[in-house]
């Protein structure tokens, strides 16, 4: 590649120079990778709160180590800090507290949790009033400034900005289960515009609490296979019955190829293309013909300037819901044509669970590690593959396989769909 690297459309080539990750499988990308290729599951019985009367009692939680009651925003910040520090240190970019580019943080829109709501309610200042009147009286009389700074919708990104010092306004974003991929997309777009040489793309989600489990249960989205937590997330299996909620964070440091080369940074991979298309069909389901997600995939390949034959491996959205896995297969076969038969497809969610807002970033990180290692992590719990999903899902055991390009899919509730394509370092 020449000194000033442009892609097939004349845009700056965007590369990855730092990766950080924390999931229910472990802290740091090395521990995660070892667990992933060993086919381990991070799912367990929920112990954070009582699960009596809940249909789903399992999740991929990461232990909350803060003082006092569980605080979702603080937990999300803590995980994001870990992944961001790992990624920034690997990239060796900027200085402590000063990242030389914008920050895009995929976060869950967390509302005041029951623990904090009851903390406010149980104060005495409000007298014998009830309901929100009592909450507001107590809030007026008390000091809840910590809740003020933690429960704004921008809180997580603002606290991360205090620590990492990105340029401009930090962007908090949500596109539901596609959020993490959207954060990467925004970074890619900023670098391609020439607005910046680097971008910090973070996904973080650590909000497993009673109400979140209930909300997803009421959408019939969660697995209820409580007796076998580690076997419950079974993407592409005939008996799959929903996803398993999980917590985690990943960070990618993106840079222009030129900037990374100029400062002698190690290039971990190239973001070749991104694609997106919003659906109009239903709030939780894709169009029956899959046209929006087909377009998403097709657009990512056009953006990358790649043909289906050049995709060596697919990091599936693969949630383990009956709907997603069927639609993902349908869309891939339509978008990639006969090439789909020869492409291994693997779902990390079989091991990590579904980290929701962080999933797209975590799976982007794993896609890059897959390229680096030449090993595809397995889709575990695949003892009886869905006979209607005619793909090589890398069942149960990792596969040695030269991988230069990986497609990573993310499809969200609300019809927001993103597809990313990564390749190894250019020669």
């Amino acid at each position: 590649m020449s000194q000033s690297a442009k892609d097939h459309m004349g845009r700056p080539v965007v590369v990855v120079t730092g990766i950080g990750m924390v999931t229910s499988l472990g802290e740091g990308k090395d521990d995660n990778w070892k667990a992933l290729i060993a086919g381990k599951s991070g799912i367990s019985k929920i112990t954070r709160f009582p699960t009596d009367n809940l249909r789903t009692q399992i999740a991929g939680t990461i232990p909350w180590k803060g003082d006092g009651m569980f605080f979702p925003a603080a937990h999300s910040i803590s995980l994001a800090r870990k992944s961001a520090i790992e990624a920034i240190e690997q990239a060796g970019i900027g200085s402590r507290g000063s990242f030389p580019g914008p920050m895009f943080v995929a976060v869950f829109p967390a509302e005041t949790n029951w623990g904090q709501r009851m903390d406010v309610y149980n104060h005495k200042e409000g007298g014998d009033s009830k309901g929100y009147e009592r909450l507001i009286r107590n809030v007026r009389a008390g000091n809840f400034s910590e809740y003020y700074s933690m429960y704004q919708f921008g809180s997580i990104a603002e606290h991360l900005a205090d620590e990492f010092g990105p340029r401009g306004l930090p962007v908090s974003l949500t596109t539901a289960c596609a959020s993490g991929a959207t954060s990467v997309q925004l970074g890619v777009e900023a670098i391609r515009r020439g607005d910046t040489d680097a971008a910090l793309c973070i996904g973080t989600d650590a909000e497993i609490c009673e109400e979140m489990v209930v909300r997803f249960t009421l959408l019939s989205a969660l697995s209820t296979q409580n007796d076998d937590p580690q076997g419950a997330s079974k993407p592409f299996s005939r008996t799959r019955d929903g996803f398993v909620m999980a917590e985690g964070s990943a960070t990618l440091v993106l840079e222009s190829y030129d900037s990374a080369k100029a400062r002698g940074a190690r290039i971990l991979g190239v973001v070749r293309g991104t694609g997106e298309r919003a659906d109009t069909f239903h709030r939780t389901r894709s169009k029956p013909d899959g046209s929006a997600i087909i377009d998403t995939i097709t657009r990512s390949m056009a953006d990358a300037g790649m043909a289906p034959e050049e995709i060596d491996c697919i990091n599936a959205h693969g949630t383990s819901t009956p709907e997603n896995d069927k639609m993902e297969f349908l869309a891939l076969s339509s978008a990639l044509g006969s090439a789909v038969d020869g492409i291994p497809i693997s779902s990390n969610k079989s091991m990590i669970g579904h980290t929701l807002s962080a999933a797209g970033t975590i799976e982007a990180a794993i896609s890059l590690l897959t390229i680096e290692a030449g090993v595809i992590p397995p889709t575990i719990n695949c003892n009886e593959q869905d006979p209607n999903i005619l793909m090589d899902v890398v069942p149960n055991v990792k596969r040695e396989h030269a991988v230069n390009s990986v497609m990573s899919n993310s499809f969200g509730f609300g019809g927001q769909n993103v597809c990313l394509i990564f390749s190894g370092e250019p020669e």
Partner: protein
Amino acid sequence: MPSVDNQGQAPFPVHPIVDFDISTQIPKRSDQRQMGPWQHLGTYAAGLALDDAGVAHDPDLLAKTNMIVAAGGGERDLEVDSAIMEALGQVEDPGAYLNATLMGELRPTLFLAQLSNLMAGNISIVHGVTDSSRTFMGEEMAGVSAIDTAVAQIQHNQGELFLVGGAYIAERADMMMLMEFGHTLWTGEQGSVWERENTDGGMIMGSAGAFLVLESKEHAQARGARPYARIDSIVGGRCNRQPGAAKKVAEGLLGQIADRIPEGPLPVLSGCCGVQPQLNEEHEFLNELSNRGISPAIRGVTTVMGNTLEAQFPVNVILASMAISRGAFFDPFDDSGVEQDFSGDPERVLISNWGHWRGESLALIDKPDTPLRGQE
């Protein structure tokens, strides 16, 4: 006179949303039922913008319309919350009770009506906007980043046509609690935001839905659409809000765009919400424009609308664009003496938009070199 409700969220006055007929923009009952008031308002306002731009019901244009929504979240079921709060201290097994009650009382559609990205999702479903779809969060600054990102994408051929905006419903006890965690709400009489200087300050929340269609000049010309105005520049920054820090950030931002502002009278729309010390700092910052030979004609938008959070910056861009296309700025919003008259045809409007908790931003909206809307 501003519309004010002193009772509904007492002791906090709010600016309620006016009555509007959602069925004019959300005709299907089945769609209406999937949303709460917040998503109704945003989806409704988005439809108005698409209509006004001549994009609504045009499948080809809608398929290439990108969307960036600035969102908080939708309404909680406050009755369920209240019943649970009262019972939790009395039942034998609070954990089991909480789970059972949430499972039994929450409606499945409620979660979707609360989800932040579902305002965009509903706009796609109801109006057929289907290119990219992103939702930014972060209170006032979400609106700034949404429009800033759309402008940057248009300028660099990452899209020609965008729908951007947001909505906020002030009449919500759960949001009142969230804002009052910081003791930021004004409990006195509704009045000019500038009259809260030399007090402990405080903000009055306001409801608004505000969406804009942004388009490249070439794309607008090719389809015969006339602009209201041009977005010249948007700049944003942040600090930890130590006393004086926000003003310093704003001074730095001004430095980035100062060469685009000639000396003389300048119409200014301020989103100043009334929380201290930012209120005094923003007013000082605007007064000191005079050091550059600029005479600001300031309008405190929150005096008439309250702080509309995610919708606030879109509201200000809309007001600035309307002033430019109509060839006249707004009369003063109060008689505090802070707001100077501005007569004549504004060439440009400065927007000063700072968050109640975090973020400072400035924007310059000006006249394009093409014929404007309303000036046939």
